[in-house]
């Protein structure tokens, strides 16, 4: 394998891997904070791409501004979804409700949401597929290595988002509250915290991350209603491989899957995806809790 090819594959792997990292960090925050396995996460990602299209392509706003606003917009969408759907559902649960029951019902509610968001976008935004002209269309071509500047920018931006998220979760009181609430909301309420809004924030933050993932990748991909449909499967895979509830695990898992898919395809062709799935199953045989996760339950 030539150096040029290697670098290209690596950059591809990191781009796609970092998108999965953002997706899965969001999925995980929602799962841990609010105990919702959100199947509609892919549709939030898709909405992120549409919002980005609106701000950046249609309104010609600055790229970073558009991206930040996309995150905010999807945070808002997430908040509305939580207030409209999951808050109502949460009121049905009592402290003795088993975890599996909560998990199942909220997952099913998210499937309903998924249908609505997906088809709603198709009907609302029309059948036309769109694209976003990348803000950095340049190709860096030196020493026989060709790398798209846009992809590098995506990797960098994801990195920045990951760092910000880490700081938010571990160095701020809000992050502390989110972790605390996922363990025992009632105990936190008794410290004078309105835990309801912490839940809302968890869901909004997770949605914002999905939106950022969609918005940031939209200039490289295209914007279609179906784009969120299948990312959920690989996202769940990454969540599991990395280890549920592990920040480092999610990042490692996302990058690993990116690398496996990128290099696997080059070396194996069409069966690469099958191979990656099988490999993941093998990993899970030896590491039931994921690579860096704690106990599985």
């Amino acid at each position, binding site marked *: 394998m030539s150096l040029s090819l290697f670098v290209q594959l690596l950059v591809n792997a990191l781009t796609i891997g970092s998108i999965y990292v953002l997706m899965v960090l969001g999925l995980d925050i929602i799962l841990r904070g609010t105990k919702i396995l959100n199947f509609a996460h892919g549709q939030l990602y898709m909405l992120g791409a549409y919002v980005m299209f609106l701000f950046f392509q249609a309104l010609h706003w600055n790229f970073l501004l558009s991206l930040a606003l996309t995150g905010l917009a999807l945070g808002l969408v997430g908040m509305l979804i939580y207030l409209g759907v999951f808050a109502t559902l949460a009121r049905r649960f009592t402290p003795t409700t088993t975890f599996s029951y909560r998990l199942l019902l909220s997952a099913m509610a998210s499937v309903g949401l998924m249908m609505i968001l997906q088809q709603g976008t198709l009907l609302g935004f029309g*059948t036309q*597929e769109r694209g976003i002209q990348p803000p950095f269309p340049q190709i860096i071509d030196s020493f026989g290595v060709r790398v798209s500047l846009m992809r590098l920018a995506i990797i960098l931006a994801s990195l920045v988002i990951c760092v910000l998220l880490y700081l938010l979760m571990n160095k701020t009181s809000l992050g502390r509250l989110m972790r605390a609430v996922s363990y025992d909301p009632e105990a936190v309420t008794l410290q004078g915290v309105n835990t309801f809004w912490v839940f809302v924030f968890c869901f909004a933050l997770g949605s914002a991350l999905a939106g950022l993932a969609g918005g940031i990748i939209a200039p490289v991909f295209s914007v279609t209603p179906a784009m969120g449909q299948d990312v959920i499967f690989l996202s769940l895979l990454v969540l599991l491989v990395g280890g549920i509830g592990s920040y480092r695990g999610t990042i490692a898992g996302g990058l690993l899957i990116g690398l496996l898919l990128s290099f696997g395809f080059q070396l194996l062709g069409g069966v690469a995806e099958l191979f990656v799935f099988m490999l993941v199953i093998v990993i899970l045989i030896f590491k039931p809790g994921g690579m860096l996760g704690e106990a599985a339950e």
Partner: protein
Amino acid sequence: SPAATPPAPPAEVKTLKIGASLPFTDSMGIDTKKALEMIVPAFNQAVGLTVKGQKYNLDFVIYDDKYTADGGRAAVERLVNEDKVQFIVGQIGSAPIVAGLTVTEPAKVLVFCGGASDKIINPNNKYVFGTAVWRTNLPPLFPYLKQAFPNAKTIVNLSPDDETGKNLARDNSKVATAAGFTVLDSVYYPRPTQDFAPFATKVVSLNPDVVNFPGTAAGTSFGLQLKALYEAGYKGALVSPMPPNLSEVLSVAPKEALEGMVTIMPPTDVPNPSSMASQYQKDWTAKYGQWSVASLQWIPAFYAFVEAVKKTDSLDPGAVASNISANGLSWESANGKAMLVKRPDYKNNRFCDTVSSLNFGKFTNGKYEFLGSISAEDLAKANEAAFDGGSWK
């Protein structure tokens, strides 16, 4: 306007229910539905269908098949057993079509569908006809390519990893080899892929003179493939056996990425489009705004159906099927003149699949450059020569 014309005396016009199943969860399905909803009322208004002196208004019952086998089966079950349709006109996606065939064949329901795989156009099936031109449009493409790039010798197919993609890649390879190219490999990507970088990297590392795109959906997916190839440093020739949806392609790919591509041109973009094609485009834009090339793709089935019934002068699906199976059919549609052909390569010796006149162009400097066209008859001949065994006509 339609309201101004005096309505025909109602007692004399009967209504004929025609079925269709389309994926409503997909833009292609919705565009096809919109197309039918546009051309069918216009057809009723203008001429209608007259059989044995009786005039019929066509009433299309269109159901969602969700692009899945189970969805297709349920839709067809309902069309056949509940709505009692005897003609199903306009289906896309091989999974729902194949699933529906288990219902339509025993019930002797005539089907004009978009799929043309050997699982559909199959000697066991008597009442199904293919009206898509994916396979049969290949043979003339490669000579045009040769003409445009005299030094090109090797070719790689980039194709979706599904039934259609695999079959088309195989057929394309056969035709390309016959035209004197060496096929290096076929690279398959899963249908929903958006990240084409790995595939483009792979294609480039094979270092072909030509990249061909059998079975690619003509919208942004195609654009993303072109962009990925461009970014991966591909400099060779490009050939597309499907008319690309230019506005969608160019919304994701820079126009340099398309430079020099030899392609089949949509009938609306040739220098002198047929009146039917221009009218269609005009009506569409008036009714729906944004023009969709893709909407043209699946409607030849409708024109074929009308012609077949007229020619047989019967509404008995069995009679229509045996008539056109034995004698063939030719019709005019917005896509140009088309005719039924036999498929000896599928061991199917009845008239069952379609060829239609085609236009070829080359993409230069952000625009199509018209290269030439081929008539349906010549196309049938070319197929006969390229696919071994038997006569297509």
